[in-house]
């Protein structure tokens, strides 16, 4: 039951965030600080959530670290979302073949 409440809390908040500006706000946000803050938030959140969590997602920290480095390189060289994700998976798959 608690899990369902969690899920509905998440869903409600997610929808409100998306629907409120679309329906209520018809003018652009003026505050430069809030604009800048909102601009930086996604990148900072994702970076914080990626490291060091990726090290503990795999069976060995070495393969997690390798996936991180190769993923960073792939994205830097222009790989899109799907390609980067698949590349990271492939690195772990191949490396853990040798480790275990």
């Amino acid at each position: 039951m608690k899990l369902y409440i969690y899920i509905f809390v998440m869903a409600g908040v997610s929808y409100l965030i998306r629907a409120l500006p679309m329906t209520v706000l018809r003018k652009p946000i003026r505050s430069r600080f809030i604009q800048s803050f909102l601009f930086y938030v996604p990148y900072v959140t994702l970076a914080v959530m990626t490291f060091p969590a990726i090290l503990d997602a795999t069976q060995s920290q070495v393969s997690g670290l390798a996936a991180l480095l190769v993923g960073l390189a792939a994205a830097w060289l222009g790989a899109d979302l799907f390609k980067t994700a698949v590349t990271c998976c492939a690195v772990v798959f191949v490396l853990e073949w040798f480790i275990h």
Partner: protein
Amino acid sequence: MQQEKLRDSRQVFLEGMKDGIPIGLGYFAVSFSLGILAKNVGLSPFQAALMSLLNNASAGEYMGLTMMAAGASYMEMTLATLITNARYLLMSCAMSQRMDPEGPFYHRLFMAFDITDELFGITIARPGYLCPRYMYGAMVVSIPCWALGTALGTLAGSLLPLRLVSAFSVALYGMFIAIFIPPARKEKVIAGLVALSFAASFALSRLPVVSDLSDGTRTIILTVAISAGAAALFPRKEDTP
């Protein structure tokens, strides 16, 4: 005339579906890894699919699952979802400026449901007023992929060999990387913020006392602190989104 209009709107819907296919495939791989995590937290395949169907947010759901695992309060869950999905607020603002003012209001309610990085990207990339039917076409393809991938990840996570699960579980991080690296490549400030976030996140996860906080709480604290610092030190120019 009426006939022609009908055919046009069907054409636009089909275009949306077509562009939704590569997005749906990407969603499938990523949501599969989300499903593996959901299974570890204790969600059933149905609960996992329901979560994905109602949320449509990779980072937001990931954060939600870590909060569930930590047994967070509903207030913490609300705050965590708010922070992780804050970027959709910005996208929704941008979209609101591009809606046909004459168009029916209910389009805003339906389109808002699936504002994601990818659908926002393809919808706003088209010239002129935003086309609800185009976005609906993409939604019809990508939403089921997202929910189905999550459910299958939860189901198959325990059937697959450990090494395969291990490999799939980095898909999510790969996607995160692919979102923050392109802008980091363009702007030194963002590259610096990514490096700082890595370092601070690592430090907080290893330091005594602070490391006892849940992953979700640490993420909120770091996100607010670093983003606010950056906004104060490096405010964006007026015209950048």
